[in-house]
């Protein structure tokens, strides 16, 4: 059997250490003595303090000013309208006020000469853990995975750290908003769409809850095999699979009943009181169709089961990850289910898959007219989002569509296209200035504006670069 690299590996699992063989964290084997426990506590406190120092960004944040800005003589790429060469874009109070060759520059506006430069709408990453994770291997810095299988009441927006060092690292490459999502279990929690600037989680939230996230139960014994290895293992796998499905169905059944009870009592106070339940309460907007469900499923069998589940429960479904998406196109098309693809820079799930399976999915959806967006499914390296999209373009997706998959398409799928995702008068001034096509690695992002605010082009990494460039 060959060594397998996991499809969506954490970097620490990529063959570069003992962790490659499956990290198992076992609690301390012996119960420490009181004195050693005390020492341990002191040590932990110190360690946490030290980490706190390193894990908190001291990078300057947005300054709260939303000046009137005019970028002149630039190539403006609105995404939803044709490219405008030698044009001007004006924004004020955080909103775009004019775009065009003859757009007037208001008096008192800050004028930026855009000669030789381009202006794009800020990119949107449809799936990250930004703000929830600082150092993967240090549990104290991670708030991605709650205990247990069912956590619909875990809200990402509650735990976003606005001062994470990941935020400036990501935004200075032109990514201005991201979906940040919990992970793990069967129902992981509810994600938020956040802008990558702000002093409090509330200032960062564009939409929360954005979606409920389900890791759809998978029927297999090894992560890569389509079929279990032997009969005993198959039996075991089937049992655990149906148990997980039952849990999921029960949750939705209970949530429906809860929603019914709640609405009945709301209409008539004489209806019997019901016990409040935070978990079921968090499900009410989901079962009432106000909050969509992002179902993470990768292989054909799981995707089909997920679609069937969504049909049964009448869920507003968005499919995510979905390496086998090309095999279920008619089913998605019939139901108008949008898809979040990615990470694109990942290996095909099976040994005999075409080497470019993951790269070609976007174009197949594009040809079929299925709505889709692209995610990095990353945290630290979400800055590479445009290169995930570019790889799809290298394998057939038109370049302008690749750009849409990380701008206007996610905005449409998440119901925020009236605010972000393109350069249009009246929309938020989430945009960046670059010296070329942002999907090319060699392009440099020069300036970033989020909600009209001028974002400092520094990060923890640029400061380290400056510091050590000056080492004598």
């Amino acid at each position, binding site marked *: *059997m*060959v*060594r397998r*690299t996991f499809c969506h*590996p954490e*970097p*620490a699992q*990529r*063959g*570069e*250490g*003992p*962790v*490659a*063989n499956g*990290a*198992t*964290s*076992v609690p301390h084997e012996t119960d420490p003595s009181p004195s050693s426990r005390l020492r341990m506590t002191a040590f932990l406190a110190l360690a946490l303090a030290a980490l706190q120092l390193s*894990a908190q960004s001291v990078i300057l944040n947005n300054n709260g000013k939303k000046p009137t800005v005019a970028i002149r003589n630039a190539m403006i790429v609105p995404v939803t309208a044709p490219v405008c060469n030698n044009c001007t874009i004006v924004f004020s109070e955080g909103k775009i006020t004019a775009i065009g060759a003859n757009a007037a520059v208001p008096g008192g506006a800050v004028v930026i000469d855009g000669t030789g430069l381009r202006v794009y709408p800020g990119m949107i990453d449809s799936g990250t853990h930004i703000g929830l994770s*600082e*150092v*993967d*291997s*240090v549990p104290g810095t991670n708030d991605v995975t709650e205990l247990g299988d069912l956590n619909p009441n875990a809200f990402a927006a509650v735990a976003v750290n606005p001062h994470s*060092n990941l935020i400036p690292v990501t935004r200075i490459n032109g990514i201005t908003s991201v979906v940040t999502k919990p992970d793990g279990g069967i129902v992981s929690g509810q994600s938020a769409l956040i802008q990558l600037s702000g002093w409090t989680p509330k200032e960062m939230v564009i939409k929360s809850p954005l979606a409920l996230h389900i890791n759809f139960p998978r029927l297999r014994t090894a992560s890569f*095999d*389509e*079929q279990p290895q032997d009969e005993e293992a198959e039996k075991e796998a089937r049992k655990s699979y149906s148990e997980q499905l039952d849990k999921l169905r029960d949750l939705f059944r209970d949530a429906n009943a809860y929603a019914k009870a709640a609405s009945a009592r709301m209409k008539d106070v004489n209806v019997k009181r019901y016990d409040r339940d935070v978990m079921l309460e968090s499900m009410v907007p989901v079962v009432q169709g106000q909050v969509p469900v992002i179902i993470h499923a990768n292989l054909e069998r799981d995707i089909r089961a997920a679609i069937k589940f969504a049909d049964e429960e009448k869920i507003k479904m968005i499919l995510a990850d979905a390496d086998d998406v090309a095999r279920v196109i008619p089913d998605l098309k019939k139901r108008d289910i949008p898809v979040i693809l990615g990470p694109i*820079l*990942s*290996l*095909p799930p*099976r*040994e*005999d898959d*075409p*080497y*470019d399976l993951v790269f070609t999915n976007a174009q197949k959806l594009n040809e079929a007219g299925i709505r889709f967006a692209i995610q990095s499914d990353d*945290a*630290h*390296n979400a800055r590479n989002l445009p*290169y995930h999209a570019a*790889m799809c*373009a*290298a*394998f057939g997706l038109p*370049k302008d569509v690749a750009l849409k998959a990380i701008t206007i398409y996610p905005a449409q799928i998440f119901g925020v296209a009236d605010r972000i995702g393109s350069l249009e008068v009246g929309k938020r001034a989430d945009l960046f200035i670059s010296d070329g096509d942002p*999907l*090319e*690695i*060699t392009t*440099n992002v020069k300036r970033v504006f989020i909600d009209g605010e001028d974002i400092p082009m520094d990060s923890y*990494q*640029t400061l*380290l*670069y400056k510091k*050590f*460039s000056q*080492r004598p």
Partner: protein
Amino acid sequence: MKVPMKVTMRKLALAISLFATAAFAENVTVIRDATILTVTHGKIEHGTVVMRGGKIAAVGPDSEIAVPAGANVINASGKYVMPGIIDTHSHTSVEGSVNEISLPNSGAVRIGDVLTNEDINVYRELAGGTTTALVLHGSANSIGGQSQIVKWKYGRPLAEWFIPDAPRTIKFALGENPKSSNFRPPPGIPLQYPATRMGVEEVIRDSFLKAKDYMAAWDEYDAKKKRGENPIPPRRDLMLDVMSDILRGKIDVHSHCYRSDEILMLLNLSDELGFKVRELHHVLEGYKVAKEIAAHGVGGGTFIDWWGFKAEAYDAIPYNVALMDRAGVVTVVNSDSDELARRLNLDAAKSMKYGGLSEDEALKLCTLNGAKLLRLDHRLGSIDVGKDADLVIWTGHPFSTYSRVETTFIEGDVYFDRAKDLAMRVELAKEKRDRLKKEADEEGKNKKGKKEVSNG
């Protein structure tokens, strides 16, 4: 009895690869009218490369290079040719675990003994232009196993993957992995020394000191024998044999490391004990001590992106490559990943964005510099006459995210070709269908047969 599908499919893939290889094996192949990125002598527009006998026989502008009679000519108008990509940090094709996890020093074991030529990721890497790799032991031990330099000759017997004049190499590891910071051993395997960076240093120091005693004992034995005495030979120790060969300069040290303090620790130890470090791997804080690394003549192989996955990777910056390269460190981008190994060209390109390396400097990061660190620059890493014909044809500049590999050659033979790959998919799908049907039919027959027996 069910035949696991993956085995069947793997064999099919092998058959395809062999077929593809045979097509050009006997011929002289000429690539015409391409933009040639030679790495050592600039870019040739409308250029020609002639491959003969597995070597580059000629390279230059179309106007100056004649096409030999009977040559197989590839018109590469608008396309780019670069040398095969070299990945100095791979675990692809290792069968089973990459770590002999049981000892702080497991230097006696050899990765070359546990390679398989059936790992599909090798083919996927060829499809990303990678042709040569240093396949390393894992980083669970301060001194891990010996590593293996191979060419990705997918579909050929493993013996042909090994490069005859490649040096012997060994993996060292510093920091969180050898001190088991993020890891508990599986049941049945005890906790292992060391648990600190102090202990890591001690393991390495102790191993070398023991090796020095061991060498002295053998020297004494040899001297006595020469004098005609009849001495008792020292006990052979496979680990100390290896450590001795490192001290003799016969084995190159490739060391996993992250933090600047541990990097300096190893460099200091090498000065003190008289061994040489060839390449520091990952070396995420190399930029903090770049001048010390350069002064020791040690190379650096790093990631551009990965940071924050461990505490010791928190200060990793994408500018590391540029800062080390500028300080005079022979720097490479390497993968440590079956996935990343398919696009090292793009990691090289990132050094232009992060730190402003020139295109020529950036190109070397995934070609010539790797060849140098593997001591194979006399045959790999650039497009020069006499070097191995390990070449990649791209649809556009390999630093453009929109480019794709068309064809990958190793020693003049085709190991990946996109057009062939696309054609073979149809055949593969048909063969898969047929085999599954045959299998189902046979199962049906067996069941029927059993029934008849029981009825009888």
